[in-house]
């Protein structure tokens, strides 16, 4: 069996190493050495500003963890998270894939209008959501409850998805239901998931069709622009979702507010009553962070404020009190969306002295952060609950405060399925 090895030897001896081979080999070897040295010399960060997430920490070493291999796995993640020039490498791989003609990179569609839209993953926790939402409605004694599940750009801007993208395809196919039935492997669309949850809600929980309202606006805008519905050339002030972030814009939130008003028999204030202001033109959002490639450009944040507002915004966890739901200090940082309602707090209490009475509770995720301001003109007090951090369940608080007559549950479909806050809704 030595024959193979022997042949190889003679071949190598007849082909000596060339100068170029030598130079390229040593260059790459040098690069490897430099990066490994740099890895140990550079200061490790706990948090990535550009990716807006906590980076992996060095794992705690225990025998159990060594035995099941989780230490080595964690070390691998640690190496990737703290690798020198990580951001630059992310740009390199995104650019390489984009140039190769890819229309979906790292779970993000490169939409036809140049925006970034996240792929809708198969939902895992629909039943749990149904149970939690129902529990909240059942527990709430006096107030009226309504549920607003906001579809994301993947559904609303489906015409802008790349040609033949599976999500667009699934939305448009009429034979989907039969396919799902025949082949078992059901991967419902976002809208089907919303419908499924809505259909399972108890009597006490009114459901709000925000998808219909958002789609109507897409069509309305398209007609006004005299173009197709693929979102090309829509000005930032008419965009419902950010180009580089998974949130809806203030305008999108306004459309949602209109849908809520209609469902609740309230007359919405026209948008023209508000003072709008462009507060940022260099917002690079969470979807941008998944790709980290400057090619995709930045977003505009437009904020709006009612001239009559006389506000007091209280953050009970820190005791901080301000007079605005907006926090301009975030606009100079990476996480600009925290401009709305100051990022993460278990509870926020906003009072508007321009309105005499009434109180509403909003049980929500970050989508509501730019929505809440529109409620301020209808209620004296707005209680905002972030169930990821608020312990004990909002219904207990709501029942203890009889002035609360209205409860709005507001989540987006993109993150709710994996949201750790679901368990806190009751």
């Amino acid at each position: 069996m030595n024959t193979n090895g022997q042949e190889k030897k003679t071949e190598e001896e007849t082909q000596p190493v060339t100068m170029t081979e030598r130079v390229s080999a040593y260059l790459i070897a040098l690069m490897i050495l430099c990066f490994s040295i740099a890895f140990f010399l550079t200061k490790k960060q706990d948090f990535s500003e550009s990716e807006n997430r906590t980076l992996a920490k060095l794992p705690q070493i225990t025998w159990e963890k060594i035995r099941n291999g989780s230490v080595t796995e964690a070390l691998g993640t640690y190496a990737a998270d703290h690798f020198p020039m990580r951001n630059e490498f992310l740009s390199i791989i995104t650019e390489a894939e984009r140039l190769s003609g890819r229309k979906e990179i790292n779970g993000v569609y490169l939409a036809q209008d140049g925006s970034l839209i996240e792929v809708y993953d198969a939902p895992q926790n629909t039943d749990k959501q149904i149970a939690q939402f129902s529990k909240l409605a059942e527990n709430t004694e006096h107030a009226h409850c309504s549920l607003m599940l906001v579809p994301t750009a993947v559904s609303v801007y489906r015409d802008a998805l790349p040609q033949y993208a599976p999500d667009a395809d699934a939305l448009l196919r009429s034979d989907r239901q039969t396919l799902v039935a025949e082949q078992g492997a059901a991967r419902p669309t976002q809208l089907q998931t919303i419908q499924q949850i809505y259909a399972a809600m108890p009597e006490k929980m009114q459901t709000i069709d925000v998808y219909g309202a958002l789609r109507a606006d897409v069509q309305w805008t398209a007609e006004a622009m005299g173009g197709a519905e693929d979102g090309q050339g829509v000005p930032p002030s008419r965009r419902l979702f950010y180009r580089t972030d998974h949130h809806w814009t203030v305008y999108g939130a306004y459309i949602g507010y209109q849908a809520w008003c209609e469902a609740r028999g309230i007359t919405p204030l026209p948008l023209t009553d508000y003072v709008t202001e462009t507060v940022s033109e260099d917002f690079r959002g969470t979807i941008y962070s998944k790709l980290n490639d400057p090619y995709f450009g930045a977003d505009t944040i437009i904020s709006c404020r009612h001239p009559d507002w006389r506000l007091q915004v209280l953050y009970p966890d820190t005791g901080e009190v301000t007079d605005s739901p907006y926090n301009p200090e975030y606009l100079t940082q990476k996480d600009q969306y925290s401009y709305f309602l100051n990022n993460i707090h278990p509870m926020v209490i906003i009072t508007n002295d321009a309105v005499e009475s009434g109180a509403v509770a909003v049980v929500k995720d970050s989508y509501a952060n730019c929505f809440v301001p529109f409620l301020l003109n209808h209620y004296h007090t707005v209680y905002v609950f972030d169930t990821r951090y608020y312990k004990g369940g909002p219904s207990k608080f709501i029942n203890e405060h009889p002035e609360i007559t209205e409860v709005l549950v507001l989540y987006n479909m993109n993150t709710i399925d994996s949201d750790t806050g679901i368990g806190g809704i009751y």
Partner: protein
Amino acid sequence: MVFSSLPFLFFFLPAFLILYYVFHGRAKNFVLLVFSLLFYAWGEPVYILLMLLSSFVDYLDGILQEKYGTTLLRKRIFLACALIINFSLLAYFKYADFAVGIWNRLTPWDAALPGVALPVGISFYTFQTVSYSIDVYKGRVKVEHNYLDYLTYVSMFPQLIAGPIVRFSTVQEEIHSRKVSESGFVQGFHRFLPGLMRKVLIANQIGALWDSIRAAEGISVITAWLGLLCFTLQLYYDFSAYSDMAIGLGRMLGFHFPENFIYPLSATSITDFWRRWHISLSTWFRDYIYIPLGGNRVGVTKHLRNMFAVWFLTGLWHGASWNFVMWGLYHGILLALEKYVWGKGLAKLPKFLQHLYAIVIVVFGFGIFTFDDLGEMGRYFMQLAGIPGNAFFGTEFFWYAGNYLPFLLAACVLAFPVWPWFRNKMEKAGVYRKNLAAMCGALLLITLFLVVVASLVRDTYNPFLYFRF
């Protein structure tokens, strides 16, 4: 640990190489041994004991055969003991669940599944270490007296967990004394790097495409076939790249491992395919099963029996599941048909028809290989034939093929020996063009290396298929 990972490339490999080149003489083997055990322990800290046991059994068997194997009977007893221990370990750790599953299905007495986790690389090192015992028995290799040297051979990290299946006779001399040279480092590195790129930039990318096609619902016939082609390409690039990296690393250390893949997808028949695909495995089965059974120097009936045995076992070696057995037998039947029915006629066909014949059979075969759930296999194969009423052509094909077009093209083209052809052409093209091509090649290599690192830093998809075996 896997070669295509940041910890390996940036920490393990540089640290190892520096120490390896600094130390001389026997210390080199010691460095190699220590790092090999670390390499294995990185993923399997407990099962390392199993590898130590398995290799010790065969080492001991060699010594016993030499010292006390005075009669054929004694030698046979020693060999039988070694084989029984090794194959029992393999059977328990790889096939226990499978066997209990069959038992439960066939008999009314249900037993609980043992639920044993497969130790990484057990199929590879068992075959290596067993081949040593058999070779000692047959007098084809000198008995090794130093356990550490023998263990260095079995545990040698370049080829430990996914082949090639290197026999002790191939590397015995080099284990004791080998020429470690600077040009060997350069040559080995130039073998390792393209392997790394084929793994990260082709196998991982095409593999991601296969995963999304496999998970898609209601795909058309043509997309279903594209899916199987993707799996074939993924498996080929994944596995052959691993062998390339192993051979390259071996070369850097002064070893010469046998070639394992010679453009198998460019085969012109299934017989040809098996001369090119996972060569170290097929020659193992040839030398240790097929030929001892009499090979083809027997009557037709016995020859067919021998083929059945070899291909049943080849299938089973790949995994404890019926689909692997089916895949092995599928290839066995086609080989028999080529031998006895249409082999000669096939050779007379135009070359491109021969290629088409081989690739269709191979791709279809990997369809059997990839689905260990027979129900899922059935559903997918129905789609291949359009039986559920799926269209022959659907626009989703544009999505899958379009998104990965450059990668698919590169994968298809590089599966043929275009690179040696190009090198050869440049050799004859004169000094100027030859140097220009070499410079461009070097630049490309450095650029692609950066893309590889970028891809590993993002680290979304990086499995090694053959680790399951």
